[in-house]
């Protein structure tokens, strides 16, 4: 009887093995101290403090929306990388590559996951913002982090918008045409914006259809080949890069500003 109790399960023996300990740094967390080390000694988990207030783990307080937004960002990165294997951002191939993706990949739902995940991320980010507002969590000392969050929300929308063009179907180019047409009207730097005509030397307009901010965004006078490449690079590299920097600041500031908000 006594010997039986001494026998440890396979799982916990693995947990005490040299290989496991070399990777995870601590054994199977059993005591309070070990559990704290499990968080502190893990590069991913130490985003969290070792201990949090009780209300912080209640789904009714946080709605889990901030965490889900980050999770969706990860899902979108992974599915996006997989989609990049198949997709070529040229007017010639873009549409057919999407068709190829639906017809040739067995049980393929990568594009669906990516698209619905992107829509869902817009929603979770909005709901997260709503939660932060309703709990008054933007109040000092968290003002700055609210600002970072607003920028992250804008970045999320822009990420979704740049991705909208890539299937290169009617839905894509006309939604992006409608959206980017706004840039025409940018004061001073859009050719149909107020003040644009003031920027002229004599009779020569400096801001015209071939030099304004819309031209810079589209890489041309209309949504075409250059726009597709531009939006592809923005969507896959440039904007996610910026988003990751802002996210790092956002998460770091949560800790620095005293962790999750709560009543004093």
């Amino acid at each position, binding site marked *: 009887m006594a010997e039986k109790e001494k026998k440890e399960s396979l799982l916990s023996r693995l947990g005490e093995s040299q290989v496991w300990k070399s990777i995870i740094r601590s054994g199977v967390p059993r005591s309070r101290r070990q559990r704290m080390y499990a968080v502190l000694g893990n590069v991913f988990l130490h985003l969290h403090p*070792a201990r949090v207030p009780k209300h912080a783990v*209640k789904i009714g307080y946080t709605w889990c929306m901030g965490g889900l937004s980050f999770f969706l960002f990860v899902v979108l990165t992974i599915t996006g990388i997989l989609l990049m294997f198949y997709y070529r951002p040229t007017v010639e191939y873009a549409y057919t590559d999407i068709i190829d993706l639906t017809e040739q990949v067995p049980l393929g739902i990568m594009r669906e996951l990516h698209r*619905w995940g992107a829509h869902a991320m817009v929603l979770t980010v909005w709901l997260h913002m709503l939660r932060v507002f309703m*709990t*008054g969590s933007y109040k000092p000392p968290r*003002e700055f982090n609210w600002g970072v969050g607003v920028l992250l929300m804008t970045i999320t929308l822009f990420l979704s918008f740049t991705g909208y063009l890539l299937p290169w179907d009617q839905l894509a180019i*006309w939604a992006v045409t409608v959206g980017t*047409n706004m840039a025409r009207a940018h004061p001073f730097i859009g050719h149909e914006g*107020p003040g644009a005509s003031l920027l002229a030397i004599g009779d020569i307009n400096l801001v015209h259809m071939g030099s304004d901010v819309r031209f810079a965004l589209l890489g041309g006078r209309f949504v075409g080949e250059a726009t597709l490449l531009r939006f592809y690079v923005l969507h896959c590299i440039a904007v996610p890069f910026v988003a990751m920097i802002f996210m790092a600041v956002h998460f770091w500031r949560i800790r620095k500003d005293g962790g999750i908000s709560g009543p004093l």
Partner: protein
Amino acid sequence: MNYIKDLFDFLSAPTISFTLLTVAFPFIFPPTDWFDKKNKQWGIYKLWTNKGAFWIFMSITFFFIIGYFDPYFNLTMTKPDNIPIILMIYSMIFVIWLGMKKAYNNDARLDRGEKPEEWNDPDDKVLVWPDLVYIELIALILFMVFLIVWSILIGAPLEEPANPAATPNPSKAPWYFLGLQEMLVYFDPWLAGIIFPIFIIVGMMAIPYMDINKKGEGYYSFKERRVGYFIFMYGWMVLWVFLIVIGTFFRGPNWNFFGPFEWWDPHKVVPLTNVNLSEYVWVKLLNKGLPTNIIAREAVGFVAVIGYLFIMPLLLAKTKLKNLFEHYGPVRYSTLMLFGLTMFALPIKMYLRWLFNLKYIIAIPEWFFNI
């Protein structure tokens, strides 16, 4: 049934639905004592109970069920890219309901002199491993399941190959920008597409600096922050979310209004009878032609805009909002006024359009400067 559909079509016209929402809003989120009294008197606070949730849920679902079996609304509703909007309507209303329920609960606790529900002894914390990590794990597994089911059931939309020569009617921006596209009805692109988005972003970033009410940090509470709640909820739910709903479901060819159960007739004729303020003043009131000097022509408009944005806050600071001004100081006060008045410029312009067919307050198409 047709009777109900006609009623919905009638009610959903922006003039009616927007007005109903705007009038109802201060009673739902009462910013002052008077509205609060009415809210209690009429029992509107009962929205934030389980029973209220049931009725809200049933009425929205009722609308979508009729819509699903209606041949016209079905076309708009079941577009794959419109599914997120239906999700948005449900989730947004649900979380507001949940938040308000918790807020009223906390308000009652605070009235009794207790701490808010979220309060715990600061020394009595829980460990992240395992108490938080396992919740995160469950949340992400459930969400992934939801996403996979959604992806299997509904294919991502793919229309015909891009054709720059064939403009669809209506051409719509992605759904999350449809609020902005809807604003284009009332404002020119330089405002609706550039200035307002910038003001929304900067204004939202400025919220923590404009709201200096120290109460209600870290827990749901309505009573302690009712003015802030009212302004934010109006801006978010009516001027953003509701405009998205209008832009998606109620705008058809040529961006004309169509009730949810109406056929999107591309030949619907809507008279464009909008008149500029300068024409009202010079032609209709003074019975003269428009002056050739642009500034003289639009002088009244300039006076109106400058008066609204800059003179009115100054006068208010001296009179009605004197306490606020002293409490806030000049910088904070002017920021609050600039963003607040810009936000309320949208409904004001909407009503000027609906009531007086006013097109532009300042109309200088020569400089692309129309307000």
